[in-house]
């Protein structure tokens, strides 16, 4: 197990390098200059050069990447030479656009995205598990056919479109949900009334559903297939031959086995969901990583973009590791081999 973990971590490191290098390269291939934005109306040669120097863009790509990577390391070799503590906070750098620490930009946006993605995952499981199981138990029934319709729609409809439709129907026409906006779960920012768990929940209901529909559809189909497959397993017949009542057969012999693959899929899909969150956040105007990413791309704000990429990569890797461990914990075949 330890060996496996170490191997996973080494792979994660390779992946991390690849992703960040690719982001850098793409940025330098795009024929746009952040310095032009920095200078605004004042597009003089002098200003541009100053801006270049100031932003560090006058140095070669590999030097810039080296500096970026040095900031990420939790060791400060300069500090060591000057007699300070060698341990420091990894830093993602400073935004080109508004000179804020990228750390704090990401730190502010991450909870919003986390709320959306994890709440969304809970939502899609709440939708898909009961529907998937029921339609597996009654194949070809009305419910099953209805569920398959839902799957078809869920897979084909884009979240941006769903989001806009929801906003139009439930917020604009019938005022039962707010028109976007995010509310902090713990303490409301000064000067706003929007805050606390209830408001947080209320404001996120539509985004959650929008975000979850695609995955809910995929999961209904997967859970249905898994349950049908498990129902045909020999050990389910063994359980019935023992005289176990159907409720017990379902609980301890069908559902547990059928849900095993769902756990693995969940890990991968939550990672995938980080990408999907971009659309939902932009439709509902939620200040999460997705929206910040879009804004930073508009501004050619490399440090912020890179910061979000780094954060996203680390989050995905960490999440996959957790899921692997979880899977090993619930499946003895993996745990003991």
């Amino acid at each position, binding site marked *: 197990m330890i060996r496996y973990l170490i191997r996973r971590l080494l792979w994660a490191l390779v992946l991390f390098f690849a992703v960040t290098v690719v982001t850098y390269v793409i940025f330098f291939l795009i024929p746009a200059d952040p310095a032009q934005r920095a200078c605004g109306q004042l597009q003089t040669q002098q200003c541009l050069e100053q801006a270049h120097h100031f932003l560090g863009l006058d140095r070669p790509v590999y030097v810039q990447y080296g500096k970026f990577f040095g900031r990420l390391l939790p060791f400060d070799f300069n500090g060591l030479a000057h007699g300070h503590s060698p341990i420091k906070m990894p830093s993602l750098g400073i935004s080109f656009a508004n000179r804020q620490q990228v750390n704090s930009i990401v730190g502010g946006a991450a909870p919003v995205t986390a709320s959306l993605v994890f709440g969304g995952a809970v939502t899609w499981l709440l939708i898909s598990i009961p529907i998937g199981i029921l339609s597996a138990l009654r194949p070809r029934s009305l419910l099953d056919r209805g569920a398959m319709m839902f799957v078809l729609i869920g897979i084909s409809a884009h979240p941006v479109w769903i989001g806009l439709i929801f906003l139009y129907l439930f917020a604009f026409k019938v005022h039962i949900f707010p028109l976007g906006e995010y509310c902090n779960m713990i303490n409301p920012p000064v000067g706003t009334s929007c805050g606390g768990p209830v408001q947080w929940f209320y404001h996120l209901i539509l985004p959650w559903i929008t975000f979850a529909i695609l995955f809910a559809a995929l999961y209904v189909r997967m859970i249905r297939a898994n349950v049908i497959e498990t129902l045909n397993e020999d050990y389910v017949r063994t359980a019935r031959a023992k005289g176990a009542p159907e409720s017990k057969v379902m609980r301890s012999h069908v559902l547990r086995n059928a849900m095993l693959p769902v756990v693995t899929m969940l890990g991968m899909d939550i990672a995938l969901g980080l990408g999907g969150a971009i659309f939902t956040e932009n439709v509902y105007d939620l200040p999460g990583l997705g929206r910040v990413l879009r804004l930073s791309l508009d501004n050619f704000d490399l440090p912020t973009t890179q910061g979000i990429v780094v954060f996203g990569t680390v989050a995905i890797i960490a999440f996959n590791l957790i899921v692997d461990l979880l899977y090993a914990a619930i499946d*003895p075949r993996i745990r003991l081999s």
Partner: protein
Amino acid sequence: MALLDVRDLKTYFKTDDGIVKAVDGVTFSIEKGRTLGIVGESGSGKSVTCLTIMGLNAKRNTITTGEALFKEQDLLGMGMRRLRQIRGNDIAMIFQDPMTSLNPVHKIGNQLTEAVLLHQDVTKKQARARALELLKAVGIPRAERRVDDYPHQFSGGMRQRVMIAMALINDPDLLIADEPTTALDVTTQAQILNLMNKLQEEFGSAIIIITHDLGVVAETADDVLVMYAAEVVEQGPVNQIFSRPHMPYTWGLLGSLPRLDAETERLVQITGQPPSLLRPPSGCRFHPRCPYVMDVCKQTDPPLKPVTGDIDHYAACHLDEETKDREATKLLAGMVAEARTG
């Protein structure tokens, strides 16, 4: 009164292509302490017969008629609640593939205790003690340690022992074993058959053993039921079936078997393929493959008739008794004669 009395059992499956008559009018009975062997090739309906008795066919798309009287109660007509009390308690079942018949995510011990707790009013501790006792009885080495292992940590033979332990844990009156040794190697098969014999002597259960292996039937069964295309074509005490078979299909089965105790240059082969149960042949279902086929065979399905001179021996064939005796003797004599020279 027999322990289990099955009368005119029919199991039809509704499929997209039409109705598959998987079991079509099967009648037999079994007494306490006896062993009944059901032989036949795949698709002959032998497994479905037993699954029907246990009520284990999917309810949807299945039509079942007839009676299966277990201790004078009809298993087919009773409610699910009552049937569940009988399953695993009075009637237990062992399946063919030990690799897939145990749930991979539960410990062996828990799967055994589950069977106890479902039927007996005992504590978990007592149930576990009983599970251990049975694991030892079926010959699992170091049972105290292995009880907390998972199925994938056991070999095929050991898993089949666990299945037997699970089946016997509530002292059933009837044990149904569906091809219990087919998936096992020959030395493991010998272990398992030995074990089943020993346990039958000890617990006195009746056993129905389903198999395609005539050797296994010859050595374990008291009575034999030969099935072909969803029907019983011959039944009787094991000695009579093997010494005086009275149905060409049984001859074919016996003759197509290469065997250690006889030398045959060429096997008697049954030509053609088993028929489709969607559209079974008219008359005697064996007629398209039968070398003795007559006109009457194509028209009317022969009923099971008693074989003159034998007790409890029935065969379904239009051939006259003389021919049947002559051909059967020829078949068996051929074997024995060649065995001497070989």
